[in-house]
């Protein structure tokens, strides 16, 4: 682990002078020098950028700055204590939570843990790269001594005996878990309305959904109830809520982050992902959690680069920082069925990328629309198998019965919500004797086609772009009774899970709605293990985007 973490001393040496908030981009610039390795990794055609060239960008609104780095700078310069910062987040959480309801559980030990960080600061001990950083954790990711329900009544009151590896690594880096965030039951849904406990609202307009299934994690970061958060993404559950809530969401390559301690939904697709209010924060979290884990045989041995150090600051850009980068816009994601406002936001984002020097072409993924039914066959089938573990015997809620089969049936009937039940039944059907070839196998064959179409498209392009969802956040209750309408909303994201490749969503614009507009996210897709490239492009995009500030009206 330690070798994966940015050396605290390296950060310290660059953090001596306190800076006003509007100078933070410059502050980041001194932290993250562009390495030649990162430059080579970006694109064979990318030009070396001269670091002494002055920036041609002067956004009217300050680009997003890193919550993690500004906190670290505050601690190291002794301007603020971890306890003061934690108190500020908790205050905001208490103020906004009655409307947003993103948390299923708020930790009682936050202040104690923050004071512990302050004692470390006082003694001059080396601080972990996430010292004092408040992180929200999606409730399907296990946390020791804290409830972990997966959003399901069947696990009401369950406290795991262990931390998920991702959580353990964050804690080892100094992070403080502020609480557990709401989700659609076990990740099955696209609105967070499918939680067994509560409905989370979108901080941009509380009559709308935050997206899902990681809606609690996205809303919490959007409302600045925590600095960063963990989510999980089986078919878009990090990316679509990131788009709906106007935050950065990263779905890493399949196998990039250990899933030990993540409640399994569809094991051939599930990944843990992260949310932040800036690309830098997402990169720092990925640094902390990525890498092989002996407790997860599907976690990759692939080398973990320093994702944060490849991000260059705005004062080091020349006017064409993406010169030569080949970007393919996925044709199938820009046509009928996608809201006009979303299409124009993505087109504007594409134009912006072109202005930064990228070469834009359209690319067609012929198997794109087949991905949606294939995804739902695979996800339901695997869910029916994975959720068989919830039988009321070893953990979770048990319904008393006078014989065992009824105990199973009654405990499951009582504990699961309607969407989980329906998906289990659909999966049971698809896996029934004699139907395997008609459904599950055919869906796996479609996965082969999808993988191949992404491979081909990513040979001709460095990255692909698309919307993260066909619409902005819609109203609570709007699609509750129409499963196919709900499933259709996942068309932009499911293929990426089938292919296993990484994708990053970065806020790119607004469409009309709510009191201040509704955010739209740009999805950027790369080849397996190209997170570094996606984050670098995302960072340049985010730092140069003009006139947008993705802070919800709720925060004033």
């Amino acid at each position: 682990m330690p070798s994966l973490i940015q050396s605290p001393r390296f950060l310290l040496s660059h953090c001596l002078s306190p800076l006003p908030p509007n100078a933070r981009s410059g502050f980041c610039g001194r932290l993250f020098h562009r390495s030649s390795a990162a430059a080579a990794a970006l694109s064979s055609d990318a030009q070396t950028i001269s670091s002494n060239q002055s920036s041609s960008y002067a956004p009217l609104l300050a680009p997003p700055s890193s919550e993690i780095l500004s906190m670290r700078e505050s601690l190291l310069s002794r301007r603020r204590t971890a306890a003061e910062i934690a108190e500020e987040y908790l205050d905001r959480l208490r103020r906004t939570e009655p409307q947003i309801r993103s948390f299923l559980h708020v930790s009682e030990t936050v202040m104690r843990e923050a004071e512990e960080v302050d004692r470390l600061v006082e003694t001059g001990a080396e601080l972990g790269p996430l010292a004092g950083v408040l992180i929200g954790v999606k409730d399907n990711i296990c946390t020791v001594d804290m409830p972990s329900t997966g959003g399901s009544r069947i696990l009401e009151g369950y406290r795991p005996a262990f931390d998920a590896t991702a959580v353990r690594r964050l804690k080892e880096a100094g992070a403080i878990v502020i609480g557990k965030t709401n989700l659609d039951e076990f990740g099955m849904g696209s609105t967070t309305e499918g939680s067994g406990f509560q409905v989370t609202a979108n901080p941009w307009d509380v009559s709308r959904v935050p997206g899902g299934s990681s809606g609690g994690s996205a809303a919490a970061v959007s409302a600045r109830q925590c600095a960063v958060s963990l989510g999980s993404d089986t078919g878009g559950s990090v990316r679509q809520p990131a788009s709906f809530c106007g935050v950065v969401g990263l779905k890493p390559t399949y196998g990039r982050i250990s899933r030990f301690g993540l409640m399994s939904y569809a094991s051939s697709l599930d990944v843990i992902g992260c949310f932040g209010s800036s690309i830098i924060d997402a990169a720092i979290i990925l640094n902390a959690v990525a890498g092989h884990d002996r407790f997860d045989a599907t976690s990759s041995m692939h080398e973990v680069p320093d994702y944060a150090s490849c991000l260059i600051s705005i004062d080091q850009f020349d006017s064409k920082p993406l010169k030569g980068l080949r970007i393919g816009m996925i044709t199938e994601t820009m046509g009928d069925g996608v809201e006009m406002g979303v299409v124009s936001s993505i087109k504007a984002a594409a134009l912006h990328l072109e202005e930064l020097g990228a070469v834009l072409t359209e690319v067609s993924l012929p198997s794109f629309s087949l991905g949606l039914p294939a995804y739902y066959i695979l996800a339901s089938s695997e869910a029916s198998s994975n959720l068989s573990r919830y039988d009321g015997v070893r953990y979770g809620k048990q319904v008393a019965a006078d014989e065992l089969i009824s105990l199973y049936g009654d405990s499951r009937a009582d504990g699961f919500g309607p969407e989980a039940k329906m998906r289990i039944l659909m999966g049971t059907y698809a896996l029934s004797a004699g139907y395997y070839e008609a459904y599950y196998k055919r869906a796996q064959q479609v996965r082969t086609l999808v993988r191949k179409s992404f491979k081909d498209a990513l040979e001709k392009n460095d990255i692909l772009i698309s919307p993260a969802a066909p619409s902005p956040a819609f109203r609570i209750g709007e699609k509750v009774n129409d499963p196919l309408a709900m499933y259709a909303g996942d068309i932009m994201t499911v293929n990426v899970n089938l292919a296993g490749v990484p994708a990053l969503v970065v806020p790119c614009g607004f469409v009309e709605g709510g009191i201040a507009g509704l955010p739209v996210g740009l999805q950027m897709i790369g080849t397996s293990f190209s997170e570094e490239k996606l984050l670098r492009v995302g960072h340049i995009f985010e730092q140069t985007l003009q006139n947008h500030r993705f802070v919800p009206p709720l925060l004033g």
Partner: protein
Amino acid sequence: MSVASALGCGAAFLRHLSSGSRSGSTLILLRAGRTKPRPYSSSLARCAAPEPPDVSRLADTARISLTPEEVEQFAPKIRQVIDWFGQLQAVDLESIEPSLRADTDASTSQREDAPETFGNREAIIAAVPSYDDPYIKVPKVLNKE
């Protein structure tokens, strides 16, 4: 190539849903959108055409005691989704190898299959709803079949 024709169907599906129509008519639209009937692949021809789902029986298999109201409520929705799954039958996938997973990294190796003692045994036992040291208690097991 039948993939292309299925793509057309899918696009029609998305268009249909986003236009706010009731999705009850989706399948009709899908079939109408298909220009030529596709022969089922040989793999499908070998088994009987799938029968529509019997929700009560599925619930039994999945060990979920559904109420009659739930059966009534779920049945049309499940049937609708499974009909929609059926569009993959129209795609020619004859020579395509299935992918078990994304398989992004072939280098993954398996750890040695050796038992290890878990440190927090008490917490695991504390989570068991009905425990009588050293046993997990369940009611009697009846073989109904």
